[in-house]
Structure formats: structure tokens, C-alpha cells
């Protein structure tokens, strides 16, 4: 099954992590991608900080451009990858070892991907 795994963090807590610690965790993130290379079908992307986000909404019949993320949540998505594993248990097993989970305010969301579009056929 294909899943998108979304890595989230809490920017206000990220600041409290020392540069040395961050670098050490980063090294292990790199290794993590190596260890799970077979399951990762698309390494996805790491995103620039949420302060760089721009959001488009629709209001009064026209698109509106605003500064900032679409939600006011404290947690923000910092990146995502696509994995292909047997089932949710396999995905959980893999995600549990995500090195950044040890940092405060970090979490990972696992979402199954829509892969069957047959119901849209005529």
C-alpha cells in the first residue's frame, strides 16, 4: 500500500534545539532514508520554513493572496515522502524510527494515498 508520510514540527520549539543536536539528528535522518530506501518510492521534499508560505483563497468571486500558512495550527508540515509497504503496521514500524521524533513538538502523520480511480470511470 502507498502512504504519504508527513513530517511535522512546532517552529517555536524547534528554536530550543541546539545546533549540535540538530546536526546530529540530521545525520541520522540521512541514514534513515538510506535504511528505508526500498520502501521509499518518492523521497518527496523538505520544505522551507513556514514563514515563507503563501496562501491563496477564494473570496468575493476572486482569488485572494495572503501571507502565511492556511491554518493557524502550531504544528507545521516540514516535509513529506511517499512509501510503499505491506500495510499500516509496516508503515508504523518504519515511522516509529524517524530520528526527529525525539525532538520536542515533532510528529509524523501517515495517510494512505488514493490509488484506485476506477469509481470515477463511466
Amino acid at each position, binding site marked *: *500500500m502507498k502512504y504519504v508520510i508527513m513530517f511535522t514540527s512546532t517552529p517555536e520549539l524547534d528554536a530550543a534545539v541546539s545546533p549540535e543536536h540538530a546536526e546530529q539528528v540530521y545525520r541520522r535522518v540521512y541514514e534513515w532514508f538510506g535504511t528505508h530506501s526500498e520502501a521509499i518510492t518518492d523521497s518527496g521534499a523538505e520544505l522551507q520554513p513556514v514563514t515563507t508560505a503563501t496562501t491563496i483563497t477564494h473570496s468575493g468571486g476572486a482569488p485572494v493572496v495572503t501571507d502565511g500558512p492556511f491554518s493557524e495550527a502550531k504544528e507545521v508540515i516540514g516535509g513529506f515522502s511517499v512509501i510503499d509497504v*505491506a*500495510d*499500516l*503496521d509496516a*508503515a508504523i*514500524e518504519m515511522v516509529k524510527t524517524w530520528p526527529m521524533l525525539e525532538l520536542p513538538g515533532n510528529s509524523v502523520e*501517515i495517510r*494512505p494515498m488514493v490509488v484506485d480511480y*476506477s469509481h470515477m470511470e463511466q
Partner: protein
Amino acid sequence: MSEPDAAAADSGEHRAAASDRLLARVLRDESARIVAALTAWLGNLDLAEESVAEAIEEAVRDWRLRGVPPNPGGWLTQAARHNALDRLRREKRYREKLAVLADPDPGPRVDPGEPDERLPLLFGCCHPALSPDAQLALTLRAICGLTTSQIARATLSPESTVAQRIVRAKRKIGSAGIPLRIPEGSERAARLDIVLTVVSVMYSEAHLVAGGDAAADRDLAEDAVWLARVIAHALPGEAEALGLLALLLLHRAREGARAVDGELVLLADQDRTQWDRRLISEAQAVLERAAMKRRPGRWQLHAAIAACHSDAPTGGETDWLQVLTLYDMLLAYDRSPIVRLNRAVALAEIDGPRAALEEVDALGDSLAGYHLWHAVRARMLGGVGREDEALAEDLRALELTANHAERRLLEGRIGS
């Protein structure tokens, strides 16, 4: 209502209850096996479970009137298969779906030597990716064969909420790829603990029906004991599964003395000659088997504590030091506020109410909304002579209690 009317209504209820009991027994023996077989056949738990649930609704209607057929499992399987095909027929691309069905026949029943096919289904229903409410509702329906309205009454939830909870959980199992199997390795113990928790909640829900004095049409406590037996039998190596079974058997043994004429009786005041000695000795044997595995855990400790109470000929002869020691051991596995509250009751017996009151007060933040915290606090306050505060706590406990029988017990204490 005049008295003869009341008597007539009573006997009518009694007849229905007996037949509901038989239905419950048959349905829970068959339900999960058919769901498991149909899921394997259809490759789709949602559809399989829906079809079996529909068959169960039909069976309840039909069997209540005409009695249980000679081969209830066959009857239900036929009806469920028919419902499944009917549902598939209404879908697009019916022929394609029909073609990929596994063996057209779910096949003969697995022989007793085979592992129990209900267990992988149960472990899937209790996956941590499902909310505790959903785990319980789905287990009650797919494993125990309760109807949605029975679950709604037993869990005090609106029927539409329960229905939606079950549909969502089943869809999530399918679309999120939750496997229906017993996990291996380190996950196994954690998942077993969730399964056992669901069964234990099932047992306690049976006593919590708000406003209810009489039993619902399904006795959840009986269903829970049944399920604990199924698990312990299927996983004979799991000490904790035996621990939970022993615990529920010990609780069950006291059922007869727990209520007299619909009024609750506290453990200390129960007529212990009314306790079911057969169940108690069965529980003791189960607990000994668990202990021999040398794999202690919280369910075994809960059961050992319950066994201490069962061993005492009178409330006054309870070995409270042993109870307290077991609670101290239990804290290593379970530091939940409820466990600490129960430990405080044992502590009061050993170190007195003043020491226990300190413990109870420390739990106020987490248990202020729980009626028994106030009831225990009232007892401790009474023990140290703070009578006015004790009365206030008893009144607060009463305010927080929805169950009629529990209310009357508290009212009796306040009045005395």
C-alpha cells in the same frame, strides 16, 4: 400499575429475556467466525461485516418468533452471503468483482486443532489507529454479534453515533490498510493489552447503564466473560489473557451479592455466602496457571487483588497488607489515577485515613469529575472527623452519579 399487571409484565419480560439469552449465545458463537470467513471470501471487511450484521438483524427478528433453527451457523452464513451478493449486485462492475471473489464457498468450518480464526479479526478491531470507542463498538458488533441498537443502549450513545463510528472504523481498516492479524514481536504484547482493555471495558459498561436498573437485552458482562475465555483459550501462552479471565470470573462470582432487590451492596457488606464458589475456584486455577508462566502483568495483579477479597470469609478479615502490596506492584505497570485511588482505600486500612486522605487529595486534579473519587474522599474525611466536609463530598458524588442503583446507595449513606 396494579399488582397483577406488574406480575404479568414481569413474566413476559422473563420469557423474552430467556430467549434473548439463547439468541445472544448462538449469535456470539457464530458471528465472528462468519465475519472472518466472509472477509476472506470477499477480501473486504466492511462488506463482510455489514452483510453479517444484516443477517443477525434478520435472525433476531425471525428466531424470536420461530425459534433458533437446527443449524444456526449455516442459516447465518447463507443469509450473510446472500446479503453480500445483493450488495455487490447494486455496485458498478458487479461481474468483475464477482470474478475475483475467492472460493465461492466460505468452506467447511476450521477444525478445532486450527488456530482460532476470530483472533486476527479481534486484534484488527483493536488496532491503536482506531479510537477506543471505535474499538469497543466494532468488537461488540463484529466479534460478539450485537446489533447497533444493542450497542447504543449498552454504551449510552445515540444509535446514529454508534452506526457512524462502526462504519468509519471499518472503512479505515480497509482504506488505511490496517491488517487483520495478531502482531508479532514487541507489538504483540502492546496490542494484546488493548484487546484485554476493550474486554474489561465491555465488562464494566454492563454496570454503568445510566438510569438503568434492569439488564439490557444483551448482558455485556456475560459477553465479556465469554470473550475473555475465547482469548485465553486461543492464546494459552499469554499469562495476561489468563489474568483478565481470572479477574472477570472473580467479579462475575460476586454478581449475585452485588445487588439485593435492585439495590447495590458494597463489597465489604456483601453476603459472601452468595458468592459463586465454583467461579471463584475456577478463577483461582486460571490465575495459578498464569502465575506459572512467570510473566507478571497488570491484569494478573488486578486478578490477584480481587482474589484477596474472595479469600476473606468476611470483609473484616481481608488481608489488607497483601492487597496494599499487590497495589504497590501494580503501580509499576499501571499508574492510572483509578489504580492509585483504589490503592488509597487499601492504604487507609493499613496506615489509617489520614495517610490515605493525602493520597486521595493528590488525585483531585485528574479525578474531580469522577463520583467515586468524591465518595472515597468522603469516607476518608469521615475517618478523620471532618464530618461536614464528608457530607459535602457525598453530595457531590451523588450529583455526579447517573446510575439509579449507585445513587440510592449514596443516598442511603447520606441519610444515615
